[in-house]
């Protein structure tokens, strides 16, 4: 919640004149109001999450952090030469990175890859609470945005405009430079999709709530879940990779079958 608004300093004199400090105070009040309002507007969810996390969870998360993450991110999570600072990345970031198994990272590479999740849900939550307690940051999204019951058509359009250039129109994934890649979105949970947009993990840009509103994010998730849950109307989708897989399939299986049949037709009878 916004901070306290009691910024006046010093005793006021009864002189009928304005104190020399009055204008300073006025400016200070004004600044605090606008700043506070902005903070309230942009990180309401963040501070709410920080409040609910009990001190005990945070302490537990700190221990886990020291044991598993501090080697690269530093004991006070302010980063080292091998890992970035986590001050202000928020609970959403931790939940995404740890919850999908990307962190702790297995090895240095173009980007952290998905692997079996290393922590239980409670441990992940504790880590998230600890990192969130360091500084305000994007919080874990509310369940109302994750039900995949939004407008699929609007989501599809937003997805094509904002996401498809890396993830492919059907979310099948695509290549980036120097061995980096945009992964397939098939089977990713709504929460992780939302958090990825919010925090911009790995090479992904951040799509914060000013850029794509939580409702729009919900629509995008709706579209992705629609594609995932409704098999292609045309039959097997061949990976939804477009003309490359179609061409390869035609040459190997289509033309392969045809050539086998020509051999059969022209074979000499025994």
């Amino acid at each position: 919640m916004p901070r306290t608004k009691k910024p006046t300093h010093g005793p006021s004199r009864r002189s009928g004149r304005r104190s020399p400090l009055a204008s300073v105070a006025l400016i200070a009040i004004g600044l605090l109001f606008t700043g506070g309002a902005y903070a309230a507007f942009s990180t309401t969810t963040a501070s709410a999450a920080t409040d609910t996390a009990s001190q005990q969870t945070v302490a537990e998360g700190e221990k886990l952090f020291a044991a598993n993450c501090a080697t690269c991110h530093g004991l006070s999570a302010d980063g080292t030469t091998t890992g970035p600072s986590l001050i202000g990345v928020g609970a959403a970031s931790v939940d995404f990175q740890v919850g999908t198994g990307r962190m702790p990272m297995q090895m240095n590479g173009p980007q952290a890859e998905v692997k079996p999740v290393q922590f239980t849900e409670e441990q992940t939550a504790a880590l998230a609470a600890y990192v969130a307690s360091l500084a305000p940051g994007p919080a874990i999204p509310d369940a109302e945005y994750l039900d995949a019951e939004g407008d699929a058509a609007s989501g599809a359009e937003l997805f094509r405009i904002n996401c498809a250039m890396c993830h492919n129109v059907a979310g099948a994934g695509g290549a980036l430079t120097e061995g980096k890649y945009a992964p397939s979105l098939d089977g990713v949970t709504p929460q992780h999709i939302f958090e990825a947009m919010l925090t911009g993990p790995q090479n992904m840009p951040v799509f914060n709530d000013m850029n794509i509103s939580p409702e729009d994010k919900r629509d995008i998730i709706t579209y992705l879940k629609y594609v995932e849950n409704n098999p292609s109307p045309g039959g097997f989708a061949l990976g939804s990779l477009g003309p490359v897989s179609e061409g390869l399939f035609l040459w190997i299986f289509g033309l392969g079958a045809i050539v086998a049949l020509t051999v059969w037709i022209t074979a000499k009878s025994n």
Partner: protein
Amino acid sequence: MSTTTNMTPAETKKSGGFTSAAANYLDERTSISTAVKELGRKIFPDHWSFLLGEVALYSFVIILISGSFLTFFFQASMAEVHYDGSYVPLKGVEMSVAMASSLDISFDVRGGLLMRQVHHWAALLFVASIGLHMLRIYFTGAFRKPRELNWVIGFVLFILAMAEGFTGYSLPDDLLSGNGLRIIDGMVKGIPVVGTWISFLLFGGEFPGTDIVGRLYSLHILLLPAIIVALIALHLLFVVVHKHTQYPGAGRTNNNVVGYPILPVYAAKAGGFFFIVFGVVMLLASFFTINPIWNYGPYDPSPVSAGTQPDWYIGFADGALRLIPPGLEWVWFGHTWSFNILIPLVGLGLFIGVVLSYPFLEAWVTGDKREHHVLDRPRNAPTRTAIGAAGVTFYAGLWAAASSDIIATHFKLTMEGVIHTLQAVVILGPFIAYFITKRVCLALMKKDREIVLHGYETGRIVRLPGGEYIEVHQPVDEYERWKLVSYSDYKPLALTPNAKGKISPVQRVRAGLSRWFFEDRIAPVGSKELEESHGDHH
């Protein structure tokens, strides 16, 4: 049809009932028996590779049938509407009528999606079977006299098939095809001085405009198919006129054709084969999605999807654009010269030109004016086969480059690594392929020679009365030997002065090329040589 042929149309009524009477009725009015007699007795040799052209023809028929169905429902208009069909993730989205009607064909016309998929799979098969057919013709030397012109017609058909494919791919006005058109637009605009004007002419103003789908539609269903049908007719007419080629074998010469007559055997086989090809295409279309336009959504110039590629047959051109190094662009005389577009354009143009004119080039180099109806085994023309392998490598490198991003993600490679490797493949690969192929061909010819002269090793060691050990060789049978020794052998042309006693530069070039072609050669075994080797079984 087969019933008609068995009837020798007679002037008197014979017993035979209705068929006989009908055949007679037809023949008296059309003289069809002459044509049936002539065509029905045409002999076709049997080999699986001779059916590839038929596959192309049948695919084209399937395309015509399914395409006609699609024209009943497709509307080639770029007027804007809000989609109101049954596909939920596009409901209410603004799109062109072309896209909306394509979606309606897919979701709201009974059998529409199947027909769309039949049309598209058959199109891919059409171009692929033409490609394979051309490779067969090339590597067996079937383009030699008198078939050079038919090679040109066939190759023009290949280009037209690509044009048909591309115009069709662009019709639904979805995101994928719009991006494809944007690349074409970019390539056209890359042509110095006139490019922009051509682009404006094509699109009726600035890209994408509201005309292009209608124009492509006219080309796709009217002009291009008409030319293709005419050229196919000419192509087949030439096949009839030239008679079919045959593989070398006992009793096969340039003056005969060994095989089955069209009627009844071949007509039945070929007719049945049409349904087999149709069946394969139907199976593909029933079970496998092709071009899911509902995923791509309507065209909008801002988004580009990852994995945006053209259909396979345009891939080589897309690959060329991907492989050209960046930065080759300068401003000269107030015009932008985009060599990163011009080099691929000119390079591919040259490649197409060389393939188109290869029969004439080879005929000039060999100086051979004879007719050839017996095919070459690829090994017996080492340089031609090696040139073919080099061409295939070049094409395949460009082709693979069109999928550089998919290769990178699926084989866990870096995009840059894939691109640089393929750049090397396209430039160095042809030389390596040429060298290896030529050596392999020469080695195989040497092996053939060895077999003709000494037969096969049997592994049976015999001790002679005198104490000598020999291995018994099994001589090759006559049928096999025919295949191994009957091939045309060329020697490098000697430089001879012309009537004025001079050697022209053209002569020099020709002699140089001839030396390149035939310097390394293995002469076929002659009868004298064979005679001498007899009784020499060790």
